[in-house]
């Protein structure tokens, strides 16, 4: 048997009191795709950062191709043949593909010889692995899928034999993701070793040979993918049985609650992001907006939530809502019984330095029940927080803890509790489960469905197609600021939505 491409022996790493990795041992066989799956904060990224030389392990050994290897920095990792493709690409936007590829790997002081050399080897690589990219295209002019290829080429150009990909499909359309996996497949057949970090069970099941599961800093299991099931993996990740499908009765859509007509929204730089859309959300239904990130969904949600200005008309129960002004219409929205779980809970939904009890009033802080004369009634706020924390099972149930010290899932529970407990007629939800652990996902989904079943309207924006399909009753797909089509969730599938997400209309699809 050949030596393992990567072997980690008893790796431990802690940050202050938090133990991110506990005595982790793992073997990755050469020429395989090895998946690492786990909830947020399970320690996947820490482990890979140790492997790539960003962190130094407190204890343990790293063996690469059968040799004990010290990796004090990323240079050493590259020298050992490890390449990393980060979730957020590390590319210089106004450089060309070629310039990005040699960045940090230039030979000598002059650029020209390095560029020529890179151009030649890029050609070989492209032929060898089917990785075609225009070397002279500027990064900001090519698509996300292409940019990811550049990242892969960067690693290959540095002679990487082991490729680590961190959540590579987060920003891709389903079609682009398929292409990525075809490339990975090809790389594997050429003898490269691939480590795939993801939280998507489907990717693990479809594309990996072996899968390791992490939970709370520990490696709970390493199994052959062929010998396991999604349910089993989910259970290993969470430590208990999990409901993967959202359990819900069919929707009973009633009167329209939100009517959007010819809505146009421009961003700060004046670029039009939402280009005249029409949508209706009815009482008792969840309308899901699918789409690859950056196609106008965020701006749509922000306008509805009163954070942005726009043109056109939006009506709640037939009454028009303000679209213009200072862009601070959030208070009027809340007064009209619109709840809003924003896409980015850390930058929008919460003030991370505030105590939990301060955050539970965020947006409703002027409500009369929180005032005592001219002062705020902090005691009432804390009591309210305790009640919500108990009802939504926020852990730890400590109103005095700062928001930043809760896990992603518990932060989101605080936001969801705040918005749902106000009993809104319309709930706007953006990326409700981004960076949220599976256990909390289940809970948050149940809360949203429960609100729908009370006859409230829900508008859900998510880049997770799986989430849209399982949670929404009706799906509208957004591409480049337009609605490409609407489907009943029960009558469509990932393939059809994926084509719409890529900008193909029903006719061309």
């Amino acid at each position, binding site marked *: 048997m050949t030596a393992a491409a990567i072997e980690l022996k008893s790796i431990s790493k802690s940050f*202050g009191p938090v133990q991110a990795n506990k005595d982790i041992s793992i073997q990755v066989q050469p020429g395989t795709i090895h998946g690492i799956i786990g909830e947020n904060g399970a320690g996947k990224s820490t482990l890979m950062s140790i492997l790539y030389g960003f962190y130094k392990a407190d204890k343990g050994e790293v063996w690469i191709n059968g040799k004990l290897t010290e990796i004090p920095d990323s240079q050493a990792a590259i020298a050992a043949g490890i390449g990393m493709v980060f979730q957020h690409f590390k590319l210089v936007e106004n450089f060309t593909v070629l310039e990005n590829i040699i960045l940090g790997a230039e030979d000598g002081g002059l650029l020209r010889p390095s560029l020529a050399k890179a151009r030649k080897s890029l050609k070989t690589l492209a032929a060898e692995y089917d990785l075609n990219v225009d070397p002279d295209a500027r990064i900001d002019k090519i698509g996300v899928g292409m940019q990811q290829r550049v990242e892969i080429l960067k690693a290959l150009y540095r002679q990487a034999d082991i490729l680590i990909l961190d959540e590579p499909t987060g920003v891709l359309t389903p079609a682009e993701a398929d292409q990525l996996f075809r490339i990975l497949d090809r790389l594997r057949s050429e003898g490269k070793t691939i480590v795939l970090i993801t939280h998507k069970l489907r990717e693990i099941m479809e594309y990996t040979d072996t899968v390791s599961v992490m939970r709370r800093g520990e490696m709970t299991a390493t199994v052959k993918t062929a010998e396991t099931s999604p349910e089993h993996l989910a259970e290993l990740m969470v430590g208990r049985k999990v409901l993967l499908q959202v359990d819900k009765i069919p929707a009973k859509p009633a009167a329209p609650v939100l009517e959007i007509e010819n809505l146009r929204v421009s961003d700060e730089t004046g670029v039009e992001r939402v280009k005249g859309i029409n949508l209706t959300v009815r009482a008792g239904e969840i309308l899901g907006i699918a789409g690859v990130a950056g196609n106008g969904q965020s701006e749509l949600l922000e306008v509805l939530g009163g954070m942005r200005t726009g043109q056109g008309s939006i009506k709640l129960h037939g009454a028009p809502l303000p679209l213009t002004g*200072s862009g601070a219409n959030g*208070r009027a929205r809340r007064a009209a019984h619109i709840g809003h779980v924003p896409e980015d809970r850390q930058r929008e939904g919460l003030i991370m330095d505030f105590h939990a009890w301060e955050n539970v009033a*965020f947006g409703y802080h002027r409500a009369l029940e929180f005032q005592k004369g001219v002062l705020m009634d902090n005691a009432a706020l804390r009591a309210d927080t305790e009640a919500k924390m108990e009802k939504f099972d926020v852990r730890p149930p400590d109103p005095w803890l700062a928001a930043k010290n809760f896990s992603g899932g518990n932060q989101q529970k605080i936001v969801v509790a705040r918005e749902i407990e106000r009993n809104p007629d319309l709930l706007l939800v953006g990326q409700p489960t981004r960076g949220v652990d599976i256990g909390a996902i289940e809970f948050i989904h149940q809360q949203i469905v429960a609100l729908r079943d009370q006859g409230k309207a829900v508008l859900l924006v998510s880049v997770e197609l799986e989430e849209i399909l399982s949670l929404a009753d009706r799906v509208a797909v957004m591409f480049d600021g337009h609605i490409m089509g609407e489907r009943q969730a029960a009558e469509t599938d990932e393939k059809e939505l994926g084509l719409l997400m890529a900008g193909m209309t029903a006719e061309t699809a």
Partner: protein
Amino acid sequence: MEKMPKWADVVLIPLISLLLAAGLSALVILAIGESPTEALNLMIEGALGSTYGWGYTLYYATNFLFTGLAVAVAYHAGLFNIGGEGQAMLGGLGVAYACLFIPWPHWTVALLFASIAAGLFGATWAAIPAYLQAKRGSHVVITTIMFNFIAAALLNYMLVNILKPEGSFDPATARFPEAVHLPSLHEILLPFGINFSKNAPANVSLLVAIVACVLVWLLIWRTWLGYEIRSYGKSETGARYAGMSPVKITMIAMLISGALCGMMAINNVMGEAERLVLNATEGAGFIGIAVALMGRNHPFGVFLAAILFGFLYQGGAELALWTSIPRELIVVIQALVILFTGALDNMVRMPLEKIFVALRKEKA
């Protein structure tokens, strides 16, 4: 998890920074051939050894309280108000107009309206940079600094050309009428049997400043307006999400900040000089930045830091008077304190955080 307990952040770090600054100052004093212990004794004796010394220390502290609070309020909204100096100058102008041209029946009424005038003038001076920041995105740090120069020029013009009494060669206003004389600590404390120094300038404004401390504390931590100010200071997108108007909060926070700076004039102009002179502010607007930094932008911290800087001012003046330590060295010492407590905060913080993390690990 917090890296270290709150008390360490609030008490230990400023204390260590202060000791470092003192240590370095001692070395500098040694280097010019004077005795640091003697110098320290002299400073303490001069600033705190008599009611006269206390009177000056508290007088300076009153100035710093107003400007320190002003910087703190703006800071909570994420705004750095460096224009305290100019706003305080304009406050002086407001006080001068209120005191010179209206015949007040009693000092209490005069104080109330002079405070309002000072606040209004200071707030007006802050309003322009605030508006430019809120509407045009012109950075408030730059504009408030520039407004200090404009304020100095404006004051110069007003004193030389308009407010100077006929026939005087001194660029200053006439003396304020007797009716607006503010009681000094001597006059306030006499009925209680305390014989506070007659010649010290500390006056009733100190009490106004302390009341301002309490009010600022209530505003920032107990009202929805303070809640909005703090939210905006922490996260602009967050504030926008919660329906707060960035324009309004920027304006309000800067107006309050400018008003507090302006109100300093009831102490130095109305209480001490009893007329408006050139350079009445003596750099108190800038010291306010250091005071707010050191006081962690909390009114109580600002109170302690203001007293410390009052001590440094008065003690430093004594030092220059009684030793061959040159006046400039006092500025060096004050600068070292500002440098260590303000600018080099992280130098102390980082190692201290490591120590606390290590300690906790041992316990665990």
